[in-house]
C-alpha cells in the first residue's frame, strides 16, 4: 500500500526523516519496501530493506507560478504561448498541454492559473519518454519562438505517469515564486501489509502505528455530517433489507442530493495518484479517498437510476444471494454469471452490485448524475474472498480490503465522512439521516492478560505501565487488577482472539511496539530432550558419500515430471501418477514415478558439454496407492530410490591417457560391487536380467537379502536414441534405496590381520561357455573352506585350442591359516579338493592338464 507522508501528517505531528519512519514501521512488522521521494531531498544514509528512488526538485528552479494569459502560437496549431509570472518577472512559455487550450486568446485571465514552473537548467524527467529519463531544460527555438523553460506535467516532476496536460493547482496554491517542494514535496512509502495487519490498509491505521512507535498522539479524521434542516424537494429514502445477516452484518446508506459532478480538487487527485489510483470525478474520487484514508470501501449509486427502476417513490434495496443463473454486468464491462454463494445488492428489478466488490454498470455514477446514494456496508471476509477468486476480481481494491477483514463499526463513520465530503466538494445537500441496518452487532472482546505471561513468552519483564501505555496507544482499553490486565480490543481489531490465543495476540502487540531489538538474547535453559538415533538418514547419507568417493557427481532434479518424458524409458511398469490439478507447464504435470528418467534427462542435457558423465541421485518417487482401505488416508507412497548414469569416456582427455575408452557394463558393475562392499552388504546376488529399458543380455538384476533391489546395465539402444545420446553406450542403474538401507548393518566386525604367511597360486580352468563366473567362484569358495581367503579372477581366454564352446578362466587363490604357517602339502591338498569339486559340479578341467 502506498502512503504519502503529507497525508500521514494530517493525523500525526511528526518531524522525522522519512528513512527513520521507514525503519520504525519496518521493524514493527510493516515492511516499507520503497520510498518514492517526490521533490524532497533524499539523504544518502544506508537504510533497512527499503529501496529509495525519486526526483529531487531544485528549490530555485522549480517553483509555483501564475499563468496570466494564453495565446495561440503563430506557426503551430497544437502549441500555445502562456504568459507566466514567476513572482519577479514574466516569461513566455511554449506548451502543447491540451488543458490550456480552453483559455486560448481570451486575453488576461480573470484568475491566474497556478502551475508548476521549471526554469532553464532545471532537471526533470522527459515527458515524451515511456520510462523515467532525466533531462535538463535547454534553450531552443520551436517553430520560430524561443523556449527556455516549461510548465510541468506530473510525469515530468516524477509524481505520476500523468502527461495528458500540465498541472493546474487549486486556487489556494501559494504565491508565485514559492519553491514547489515546499508546497507539494512528499515522500511516498510503499508498505507491504501482511494478512494479520488488514486494519492498517489505510492511512489512519499507519498513522496509529506510527503514533504508538513514537509515543505521539494521533488525530483521526472528523466524521460529523451536516444534515439540512428542512428541504422541500427532498427525495424519499430507500428501504434497506438484509436477507443474509451473516454475510452482510451491516448496511449504511446516505442520500446526497443535487450534487454537481466535476473533477475533484487537485490536492485530492494528487493524493489518489500518489497512492496509485486514477482520479475519475469528485464522487468516485471521494469514495476512493475515504477508503484509502479509513479502510472502508464505499459505493455510490446513481439514485435516479434506482428510482426509475423501482417505479415507486422509495426503492427497496435488498442484499441477498443470487437466483439461479443470475447475471450482472459490472463496472469493468464484464457480463458475469454469479455463483450461488455471492452476496448481491439488488433492487426489485435485479442485481445492482456484487456486494463489497464491484458495482454494476447500470447504476454507475455518470457526468449527468444528480443524486447519489452512498453505500458503506460490512461483509463476511471469507465469502468475499471466495467471490473474488471465483470471479477473478483480484484487482478490485474494495474486494481486496473486504476479503482481509473490515470492521462493521467503521461503516457508519466512513459513510458520514464521505457523504460530508461529497456535500462539500460536490455542492450537494443531505436531507435525511443515514440509514443504518445493523442486524449483527459487533461485540467487544476483552482478553485477560496475566503480566507473568509476558515473562513466560518473551523472557523479559516489561513494566506494567509500559505495557498499558503501548496498548492504549494502539486504541486498546485496559483495566488493571493487581497482576492481571483486562484488555479490550478496539473495534477495528478483528484479529484479536480469545483465551490463550488472545493472550498471545496481545503479547505480540506489546513486543512489536516495545521493539524486538530491546529484547535480549539468552541460551535455552530448558530441559534438553532425550536424543534418539537416526540410522535411516545416516545410511542414506553414507550411500551418497560412497558414490561420491567412487567419482560420481550427485544431482538433484525436478520431482515434478511428465508421463511423456518418463515414457522415453520404455519402462513397462507404468502405474498411475499423482497428477497436479494446476500444473505450471505440461512438462511438469505429475509427480515422478521414475528417478532414472530424471537422471537420464540430466545426463542428456550435459552430454553436449562433457566427455565423461557419471551421475547419481538419491531421491523419492511418488506412487499412488491403488486401492486404499477405508481407514487409510489416500496419500501416495514416497519411496526413496537410487539411480546412477554413466556415459562417455572412462577418463577425460589428457596427455597421460592417449587412448580413452568409452565406459561399458563393467564400469557400472564396478561401482555397484564397490558400493555393496563399502555398505558392508554381503548377502546379495547379481543375475542376468530382463528389463525393457536395457539392452537384452547386458542387464543384471540385483537382489539384496532376497529382495529385488533393481536393475543395472547397458541402456537399451532405442531408449538411448530417445534421449539422443551419441555413439557412446550409456550405462544406468535404478534401485530401490530401501533394500540397501535395510541391509546395511548397524554394526560389523573386522578380520584380524593375518599372522601367518599366505600361499598364493593360480589355477586356469576350462569350462563351458554358459557357465558364469559367479558359479565358479561359488564352487571354489565352498570347497576351499575357511583357509581359502581370496579368489580373484585375472584372465579370461577363448580360443580354438580349447574348443569354441569353451572358455578358460584363470583365478588367483590365496590360502592362509589363522593358526599356523601352511605347508605346500596343505596347499596341494586344498587345491585337489577344489579342482575335484569344480570338475564334479561344473565339469571344469584344469587347463594345464
Amino acid at each position, binding site marked *: 500500500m502506498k502512503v504519502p507522508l503529507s497525508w500521514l501528517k494530517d493525523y500525526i505531528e511528526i518531524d522525522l526523516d522519512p528513512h527513520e519512519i521507514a525503519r520504525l514501521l519496518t521493524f514493527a*512488522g510493516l515492511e516499507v519496501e520503497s520510498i518514492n521521494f517526490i521533490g524532497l531531498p533524499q539523504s544518502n544514509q*544506508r537504510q533497512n530493506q527499503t*529501496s529509495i528512488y525519486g526526483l529531487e526538485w531544485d528549490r530555485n528552479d522549480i517553483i509555483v507560478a501564475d499563468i496570466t494569459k494564453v495565446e495561440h502560437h503563430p506557426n503551430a496549431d497544437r502549441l500555445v504561448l502562456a504568459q507566466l509570472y514567476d513572482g519577479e518577472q514574466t516569461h513566455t512559455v511554449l506548451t502543447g498541454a491540451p488543458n490550456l487550450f480552453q483559455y486560448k486568446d481570451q486575453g488576461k485571465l480573470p484568475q491566474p492559473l497556478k502551475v508548476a514552473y521549471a526554469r532553464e537548467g532545471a532537471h526533470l524527467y522527459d515527458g515524451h519518454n515511456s520510462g523515467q529519463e532525466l533531462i535538463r531544460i535547454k534553450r531552443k527555438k520551436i517553430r520560430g519562438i524561443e523556449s527556455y523553460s516549461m510548465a510541468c506535467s506530473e510525469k515530468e516532476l516524477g509524481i505520476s505517469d500523468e502527461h495528458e496536460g500540465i498541472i493546474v493547482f487549486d486556487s489556494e496554491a501559494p504565491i508565485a515564486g514559492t519553491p514547489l517542494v515546499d508546497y507539494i514535496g512528499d515522500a511516498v512509502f510503499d508498505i507491504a501489509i*501482511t*494478512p494479520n495487519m488488514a486494519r492498517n490498509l489505510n492511512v489512519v491505521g499507519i498513522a496509529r502505528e506510527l503514533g504508538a512507535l513514537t509515543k505521539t498522539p494521533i488525530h483521526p479524521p472528523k466524521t460529523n455530517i451536516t444534515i439540512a434542516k428542512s428541504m422541500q424537494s427532498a427525495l424519499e429514502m430507500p428501504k434497506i433489507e438484509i436477507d443474509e445477516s451473516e454475510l452482510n452484518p451491516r448496511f449504511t446508506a446516505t442520500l446526497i442530493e443535487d450534487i454537481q459532478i466535476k473533477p475533484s480538487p487537485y490536492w485530492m487527485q494528487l493524493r489518489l495518484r500518489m497512492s496509485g489510483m486514477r482520479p475519475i470525478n469528485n464522487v468516485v474520487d471521494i469514495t476512493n479517498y475515504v477508503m484509502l484514508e479509513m479502510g472502508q470501501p464505499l459505493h455510490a449509486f446513481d439514485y435516479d437510476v434506482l428510482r426509475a427502476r423501482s417505479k415507486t417513490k422509495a426503492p427497496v434495496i435488498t442484499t441477498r444471494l443470487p437466483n439461479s443463473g443470475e447475471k450482472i454486468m459490472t463496472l469493468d464491462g464484464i457480463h458475469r454469471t454469479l455463483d450461488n454463494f455471492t452476496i448481491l445488492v439488488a433492487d426489485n428489478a435485479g442485481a445492482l452490485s456484487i456486494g463489497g466488490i464491484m458495482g454494476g454498470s447500470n447504476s454507475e455514477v455518470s457526468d449527468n448524475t444528480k443524486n447519489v446514494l452512498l453505500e458503506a456496508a460490512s461483509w463476511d*471476509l*471469507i465469502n468475499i*474472498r*471466495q467471490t473474488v477468486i471465483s470471479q477473478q476480481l483480484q484487482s478490485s481494491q474494495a474486494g481486496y480490503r473486504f476479503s482481509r*477483514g473490515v470492521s462493521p463499526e467503521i461503516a457508519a463513520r466512513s459513510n458520514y465522512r464521505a457523504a460530508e465530503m461529497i456535500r462539500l466538494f460536490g455542492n450537494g445537500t443531505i436531507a435525511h439521516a443515514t440509514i443504518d441496518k445493523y442486524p449483527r452487532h459487533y461485540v467487544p472482546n476483552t482478553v485477560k492478560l496475566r503480566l507473568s505471561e509476558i*515473562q513466560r*513468552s*518473551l523472557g*523479559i519483564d516489561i513494566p506494567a505501565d509500559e505495557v498499558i501505555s503501548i496498548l492504549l496507544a494502539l486504541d486498546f482499553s485496559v483495566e488493571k487488577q493487581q497482576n492481571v490486565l483486562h484488555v479490550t480490543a478496539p473495534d477495528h481489531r478483528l484479529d484479536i482472539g480469545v483465551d490463550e*490465543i488472545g493472550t*498471545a*495476540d496481545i503479547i505480540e502487540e506489546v*513486543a*512489536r511496539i516495545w521493539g*524486538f*531489538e530491546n*529484547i535480549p*538474547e*539468552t*541460551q*535455552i*535453559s530448558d*530441559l*534438553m*530432550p532425550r*536424543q*534418539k538415533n537416526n540410522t535411516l*538418514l545416516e545410511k542414506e547419507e553414507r550411500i551418497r558419500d560412497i558414490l*561420491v568417493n*567412487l*567419482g*560420481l*557427481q*550427485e544431482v*538433484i*532434479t525436478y520431482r*515434478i515430471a511428465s508421463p511423456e518424458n518418463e515414457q522415453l524409458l520404455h519402462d513397462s511398469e507404468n502405474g498411475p501418477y*499423482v497428477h*497436479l*490439478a*494446476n500444473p*505450471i507447464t505440461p512438462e511438469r504435470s505429475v*509427480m515422478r514415478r521414475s528417478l532414472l528418467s530424471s537422471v537420464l534427462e540430466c545426463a542428456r*542435457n*550435459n552430454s553436449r*558439454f562433457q566427455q565423461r558423465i*557419471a551421475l547419481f541421485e538419491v531421491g*523419492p518417487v*511418488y506412487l499412488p496407492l491403488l486401492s486404499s482401505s477405508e481407514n487409510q488416508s*489416500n*496419500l501416495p507412497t*514416497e519411496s526413496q530410490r537410487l539411480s546412477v548414469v554413466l556415459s562417455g569416456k572412462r*577418463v577425460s582427455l*589428457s596427455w*597421460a591417457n592417449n587412448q580413452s575408452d568409452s565406459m561399458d557394463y563393467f564400469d557400472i558393475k564396478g561401482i555397484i560391487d564397490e558400493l555393496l562392499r563399502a555398505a558392508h552388504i554381503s548377502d546379495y546376488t547379481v543375475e542376468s536380467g530382463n528389463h525393457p529399458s536395457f539392452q537384452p543380455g547386458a542387464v543384471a538384476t540385483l537382489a539384496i537379502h532376497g529382495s529385488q533391489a533393481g536393475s543395472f546395465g547397458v541402456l537399451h539402444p532405442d531408449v538411448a536414441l530417445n534421449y539422443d545420446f551419441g555413439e557412446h553406450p550409456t550405462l544406468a542403474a535404478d534401485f530401490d534405496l530401501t533394500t540397501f538401507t535395510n541391509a546395511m548393518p548397524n554394526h560389523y566386525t573386522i578380520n584380524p590381520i593375518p599372522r601367518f604367511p599366505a600361499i598364493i597360486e593360480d589355477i586356469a580352468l576350462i569350462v563351458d561357455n554358459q557357465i558364469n563366473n559367479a558359479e565358479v567362484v561359488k564352487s571354489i569358495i565352498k570347497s576351499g573352506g575357511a583357509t581359502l581367503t581370496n579368489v580373484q579372477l585375472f584372465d579370461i581366454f577363448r580360443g580354438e585350442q580349447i574348443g569354441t564352446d569353451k572358455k578358460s578362466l584363470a583365478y588367483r587363490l590365496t590360502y592362509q591359516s589363522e593358526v599356523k604357517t601352511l605347508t605346500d602339502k596343505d596347499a596341494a591338498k586344498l587345491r585337489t579338493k577344489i579342482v575335484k569339486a569344480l570338475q564334479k559340479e561344473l565339469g571344469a578341467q584344469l587347463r594345464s592338464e
Partner: protein
Amino acid sequence: MLESLDTIKTIALSELQKTSDMKTLRLWYSTHLSKSSQLIKSLRNLSNVAAKDRPTIGKHANDIRKILEQAYEDRTSYLNKSVESPGHKHIALDVTLPGRSLNRGRLHIATQTLRRIYTIWADMGFQIYRSREIETDELNFELLNIPLHHPARDMWDTFHTNSPGVILRTHTSPGQIHAMQANAPDPIRVILPGMCYRYEQITARSEIQFNQVEGLAIGTNIRFTDLKGTLSDFARRMFGTSTRTRFRASHFPFTEPSAEMDIECFLCSGEGCRVCKKTGWLEILGCGMVHPAVLTNGGYEPKKYTGFAFGMGPERIAMLKYGIDDIRHFWGNDLRFLEQF
C-alpha cells in the same frame, strides 16, 4: 719400520684416489685394510719389533689404520654420490605437466549446504526429523492455524493434486505437527529439512521446488529471548563468529510473535554492496514463538508449554555465500555449475 709404514700409507691413499666404483673400492680394502693386508699384519706382528719401539710403532700403525679407514669411508660415500649411481642421475621431467586426472565426485551444492546446516544444529542439540512431501491440506494449512479460505492462504501459492485435499507441501511446517504429535508431551528440539513446492513461474528468483529447513523447540521454558539467542548462535556458526543479527516483526500464521532475522552482510561487512542491495543486511530466516493454536493441534497444552520455530532456505543461503545469481542453476544440474563446488 716407521718409514715403511708411511710408504704403505702414501701408496694406499694414492691408490684409493684411483678407485672408481664399489668393485675397485672393495678390492682396495682387501689390499690395504683386510686381515691379510700389510698394515694389519704389521700390527699383529709387533712381537718382531724391539720392545722399546713397540709402543711408538704400534701407535703409529694404529693411527695410519684409522686414517685409511676414514679415507675409505669418505671414498665410499663419494662414490655413492657419483654420477653413475641412480640417485645422481638427472631425469628430464617437465614438472609443470598436469598430473594424471582423477575422477573426483561431489555432492550437489544443495546437499553440501544442507549438511552444513545439519551439523550446526546437531551441535546445538537439534535432531533431524523428516516427513512426507505430499501432504493433506489439514497438515499443511489448517493445523498450522491457516483455515480454509483464510486470507493468510494468499501467502502460499499451492500445487494441488487431483485428490481433493491433497497438496504438495508449500513449506516443511507440516513436519512441526508430525513431530509434535509423535513426541507430545516430551520436549522437542528438531530441524525439519526437505523439498517444498510452490505454484510459481520458474524465474531467476523463484522456483517451483526448493529445500527448506525448519526448526522447532518446545518445552516448559522456551522464550523469545531463547529464540533470539539460539538463532544468533546459528548465524555466528554459519556465517562467522563476528556476524551481527537483527530481528524485525513479521507475520506467519503459525507463530506469534513472528520475526524475520537479518544478518549483517558477510560480503561487505555491513558496508553495503550489490548483494545486500546497499542495506548492509541480508534477510536469512523467518521465526517466531509457536502459536497457541498450533501447540494445541500438536498435543501440547499452551498454558504449560511454549516453543519457538524458524525456517530458512538452504538454496538462498548458498546463493548468497557463493554469489549464485540464478536459482534455476540448482535443479538445472549443469555440471559446469556443480563442478565448481
